[in-house]
């Protein structure tokens, strides 16, 4: 999937996260993660974000995460929602969302 426009999903409330995606001029996939629990769970958060993007075949774009202590399932859902909005996608490939 190709991120073609800026998009946001999620909130800055506790147990949630805000995900911002935008097209990248360089064609690279740049992930920035900010979290109050980055020391304890930074690796896990990055793993979930990367895995989710891989399954959606997102190879390029800027992805900025502001995490407020979200569970993995919430991270997956918010990243998926932001990417699908950023791609202007209406039809879901459910196999890529598990």
């Amino acid at each position, binding site marked *: 999937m190709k991120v073609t426009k800026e998009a946001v*999903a*999620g*909130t800055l*409330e*506790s*147990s*949630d*996260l805000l995900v911002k995606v935008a097209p990248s001029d360089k064609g690279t996939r740049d992930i920035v993660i900010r979290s109050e629990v980055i020391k304890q769970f930074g690796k896990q958060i990055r793993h979930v974000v990367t895995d989710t993007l891989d399954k959606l075949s997102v190879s390029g774009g800027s992805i900025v995460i502001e995490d407020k202590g*979200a*569970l993995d*399932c*919430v991270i*997956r*859902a*918010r990243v*998926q*929602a932001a990417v*699908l*909005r950023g791609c202007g996608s209406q039809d*879901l490939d*459910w196999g890529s*969302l*598990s």
Partner: protein
Amino acid sequence: MKLRRSMLFVPGDNAGMLSTSFVYKPDAVMFDLEDAVATREKDSARLMVYQALQHPAYRDIETVVRINGVNTEFWQKDLEAAIRGGVDVVRLPKTENAQEIHELEEHVAKIEKACGRPVGDTKLMAAIESASGVVNAVSIASASPRMTAIAIAGFDYLVDMHTRRSDGWEPELFYARAAVLHAARAAHIDAFDVVYGNVSDDEGFLREVRIAKNLGFNGKSLIHPKQIDLLHRAYLPTAEEVNHAKRVIAAAEEAHSKGLGVVSLDGKMVDPPVIEEAEMTLQLAAAA
């Protein structure tokens, strides 16, 4: 028999509640994609619910997803998320007639086939929220073998009836409660009573629980976790009731071992309905 005393509403886009509602141990969690979710957040909420359904913490709780009504542009996408996520029960809001249940189950079967779930695995629940829904409750409740429960939703119903909630014994809801409950019992499915919206009024909530319990509802839809424990305690049998139920079961087992159809206990006949009631009492007591 599955206990369905409490069904906790959880807004589908509320990360905090999605992440914690299992802690309160309701009998069922109902992820809401309808009224609790703003139109612009429907897509994100759908994904949140899809992911939450697969969380191991919800494995031991009955999961329900309230989809948007069949007159909206959202309900088929909601169904995809719910069924593919592994939901136990789909709740259809504002159900007016049996035809809507037929339409729903047709789509449910298609999605089950597409994602590899056994056809018939997903159960259905109808929410009755209007006068026509109440009038058609019998045909709605028996519209499909997938139907597992029927719920009455008070707010929309009372608006449709041109009235509002009162305190006390709530005569404005009496006919709808009785009609929905009879429809459920005739179809051999469960029945949920209305939500009680004032979460700071425990006394009013418990008054309403007593009405629902005495009428025969399995339980209530709830909008706040603090209502779960209050409800479960209210449905808890007394020690005297538990003791009597144990004696009924013992008498029934003795009669069975002697090849007798019925037996008497304290001068009263112990027949199948009495035994069934005793079993329900012991089940409620065991759930405490």
